């Protein structure tokens, strides 16, 4: 398996959802930056690669680095750096499937917290 992140194959052209940074509300942009940095650290990927992630970029099940132990590390690191608590029930396939899903989840948690 190669170590390239799995994307939808299209260029990272701005769409309404993934436009960065000007199209994002400040808080969403800040969370986006923070989440990319955490993924970078956990996956050991270049920040340039993680910069290319869009909302449809596959995570769990797509990135070979992201096994259950790594997901656990990822969530614990998100808790630490974003000052949120992630409950058992929060963790489902949808939130981990794509970068967009994880970002939406993180955003909701930060607002909730």
């Amino acid at each position, binding site marked *: 398996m190669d170590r390239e992140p799995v994307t939808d194959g299209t260029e990272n052209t701005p769409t309404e959802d993934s436009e960065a940074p000007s199209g994002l509300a400040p808080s969403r942009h800040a969370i986006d930056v923070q989440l990319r940095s955490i993924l970078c*650290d956990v996956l050991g990927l270049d920040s340039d690669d993680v910069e290319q992630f869009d909302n449809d970029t596959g995570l769990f099940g797509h990135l070979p680095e992201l096994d259950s132990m790594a997901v656990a590390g990822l969530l614990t690191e998100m808790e630490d750096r974003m000052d949120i608590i992630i409950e058992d029930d929060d963790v489902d396939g949808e939130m981990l499937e794509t970068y967009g899903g994880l970002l939406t989840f993180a955003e909701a948690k930060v607002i909730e917290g």
Partner: protein
Amino acid sequence: MRSFAQWPAPLSGGGTSEEQALTFNQGREQRLLVLPALFDEANKLRRQTVEVMHRLDLSGIDSFLPDLPGCNESAQPLEAQTLESWRETAVAAAKYFDATHLLTIRSGALLAPGGLPGWRYAPHGGKQLLRSMLRARTIAAREAGREETIADLDATGRADGIELAGWQLGAELFSALSDSKTPASETLADIPSDAVPGAGLWLRAEPDEDPEQSDAIAAIIAIALSES
């Protein structure tokens, strides 16, 4: 030069166990005992830890990385070990290797014997370490179609011990780690995180090494020791 030594580690039930230690030992004056990270983090950081020791060797400092009973090459069962017995192990290792200084890595900070000056790299307690391991287990269970919750697993671990990410932890060790936050230390200085470039390698999904980080950690120790 890197070599391996056998040393007698005390066991919780009395007696000792011959354990291995990775050493850079030339009988020099400055002798650093290294207390490793625990479990999965130990695997991810072992190479990095030895890289730091190698650099210290080149700076004229001896160092010793003992296996804790139940860990690494040890033939002892992990589930029989306790936090207290590991602390005694650390005290015994410091004595056996005539350590003058100490470096703890991550949760190794929990085992630091009092009295030795030194450093802590990215210290943290057992609570978060276990939270990650408990969570890994719930995620793996869910993938396999079983429902497990962190709260239930925590209760099981405290009562009967538990296997987490392949590590069989006894009830005493599990409980003690669960209740351990990052300890305070008066004799050990924390290596500032901004002095070590990049993210901690324990976060990575795979073991790795980072020469710049090893350089930074070794330099902080070597410079401080050259001034002492």
